[in-house]
């Protein structure tokens, strides 16, 4: 039995308070983004409500030279990596297909194809090993993704080549409407040892437990010990996305039971027991959350639509005769309207 406490013994009250602020802020981002979607400013939004501890506890354990390969729900991870708030919304407003330059924050553009990013993380980690670096890759995915071939192939490759990659599975109990029992007949963490990968099943709503598990995995990765699989057991308290209706497939009682295990409440109680949950902390945190939300809303509404001809940009990094022809064709077509109504372009 591993003793996890020493792995987080150095975490100070100040750092705990900072993670509390992280969790409050990302929940506020979630709320604001959901509101923006309802108001027609975003096409879609995938809330992470309930998964704050899993994402922040792991992301706050990383170094800047580590690299994250995530799915589309890891907006708290993106927040921890330092993404501009507005950039988190760029994809969901439909203004772009990526919100940030991956190399500026050490986080790849989130994958929408389920599980595809686990192979990218494994390949990146192969490169890190070849380079003699002690950087690690971490890939985030859900319980549903563990049924995908790519995730299983990634574990085979990671084990064969013993590369520094962390498979971070947020088991949030639901893959849209499908319960985890449909994906896994046993605990998901039990699968990894079959691939030769040590695994940890951790309370994903306990930010310190998640941090301890991630630090153990990172330590192994940095010291040539190869991959680790972490199953963070948590709960998707919201819908899959704003287009989903969980009342069609799950009981209210289940949600209520998990609300009692809310990761923010958990950390709040810990801070309180340490005498650190003060009115000042609460006020300061709330003020930060409100400021972020205001900036987020303004950035979203102020985001300009991309210019029509940028639809052709970056298909290739070098000129392409066929595409250049189509760009010219569409430019002429658009210009014909200017000519017809007598205005100049």
């Amino acid at each position, binding site marked *: 039995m591993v003793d996890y406490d020493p792995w987080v013994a150095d975490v100070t009250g100040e750092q705990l308070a900072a993670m509390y602020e992280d969790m409050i802020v990302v929940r506020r981002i979630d709320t604001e983004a959901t509101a923006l979607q309802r108001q027609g400013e975003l096409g879609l939004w995938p809330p992470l409500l309930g998964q704050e501890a899993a994402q922040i506890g792991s992301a706050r354990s990383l*170094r*800047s*030279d580590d*690299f994250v*390969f995530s799915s589309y729900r890891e907006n708290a991870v993106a927040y921890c*990596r*330092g993404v501009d708030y507005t950039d988190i919304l760029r994809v969901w407003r439909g203004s*772009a*297909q*990526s919100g940030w*330059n*991956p*190399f*500026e924050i*050490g986080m*790849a*553009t989130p*994958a929408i*194809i389920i599980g*595809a990013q*686990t*192979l*990218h*993380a*494994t*390949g*990146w*980690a*192969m*490169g*890190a090993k*070849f*380079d003699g670096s002690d950087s690690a*890759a971490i890939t985030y995915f859900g319980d549903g993704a563990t049924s995908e*071939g*790519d995730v299983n*192939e*990634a574990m*085979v*490759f990671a084990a*064969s080549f013993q590369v520094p990659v962390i498979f971070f599975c947020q088991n949030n109990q639901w893959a849209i409407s499908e319960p985890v029992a449909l994906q896994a007949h046993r605990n998901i963490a039990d699968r990894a040892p079959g691939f030769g990968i040590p695994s940890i099943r951790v309370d994903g709503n306990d930010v310190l437990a998640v941090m301890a598990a991630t630090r153990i995995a990172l330590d192994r990765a940095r010291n040539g010990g190869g991959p680790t699989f972490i199953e963070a057991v948590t709960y998707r308290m919201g819908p899959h996305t704003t287009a989903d209706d969980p009342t069609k497939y799950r009981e209210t009682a289940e949600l209520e039971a998990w609300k009692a295990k809310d990761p923010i409440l958990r950390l709040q109680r810990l801070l309180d027991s340490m005498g650190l949950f003060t009115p000042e902390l609460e006020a300061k945190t709330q003020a930060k959350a409100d400021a972020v939300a205001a900036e987020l809303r303004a950035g979203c509404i102020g985001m300009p639509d991309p210019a029509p001809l940028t639809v052709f*940009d*970056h*298909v*290739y*990094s*070098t000129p*392409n*005769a*066929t*595409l250049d022809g189509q760009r010219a064709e569409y430019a002429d077509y658009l210009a014909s309207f200017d000519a017809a109504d007598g205005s100049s372009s």
Partner: protein
Amino acid sequence: MSMTTLKTQDSMTTSAVKTTTALATPTTLTLAKSITAALRQSMLDDPKVVLLGEDIGALGGVFRVTDGLLAEFGANRVIDTPLAESAIIGTAVGLAYRGYRPVCEIQFDGFIYPGFDQIVSQVAKLHYRTQGAVKMPITIRVPFGGGIGAAEHHSESPEAYFTHTSGLRVISVSNPQDAYSMLRQAISLDDPVLYFEPKRRYHVKGEVSPVLGESMEKAVIVAPGTDVTLVTYGPLVPTARDAALAAADEGVSVEVIDLRSLAPVDYATVEASVRKTGRLVVTHEAVRSGGIGGEIIASITERCFNYLEAAPVRVTGWDIPYPPAKLESHHLPDLDRMLAGVDRVMGR
């Protein structure tokens, strides 16, 4: 958070430092060995070039194309992978993120489909998705085509799946010099390239110079003519040249074009030829419907309909799954079927 330790793809891509040359002077090589020479030169020039594939290490690949490379470059650069095509492509994506320049070998044409999602959804789209931030300098080598008496899944021509996918470049070689020069160009390009190798021509010999030569995107007239334009690529180029010789005996002058690049197609070269001849035949092993022949004929018809003397003709594999070896001669276009196509556009 400090950003100083972050590395971009560009900062990790080592500029070419030529230490040794794989080919010093023009040498007579088989098409397969010219691919080996191109891989070797690319690996000598750029330490970020790595190979991934099944059986490419000690065995040197099922066609021996990577023979000797493991011994020369080691297991971190000639990577024998577990048997998972999606992972071969998917880990190449991650290596590219890290600044590497992966060359993947898909063992046979019909084995590429497990890797299809990673190619189409990731490799092809990441540069567009990231607005140019992430480059995908990945080359995917695919031995393709039939005529070797093989079992199912070993003789297919899946190129049109990839020419239909924006973000990819697709090329096919027909001779040892192109096999060398075009592979070197493909590997050095910052965009992904599907490189289709005509496996039934692996043993064709030719003189190979260590040059990059004509751009891989340029079609080449391999036999000049004035009456009919016969467009093809890959394994059928030698057959088309033979067909042109046979047609000449009957008094018909056939101009044979080796497309070399299937995406993008060098329409300027094809169009100039058709404006001269007025007649177009396209031939490929791949099935007809949704194929490259139809696309070329449609595009040429749009460009120079008034120059056409006859309706263009496709001479292709039938719309069937690849047949058993004893029937493949009835599926693959041969010299006689090409001549029948020439006769049709000549109205004979």
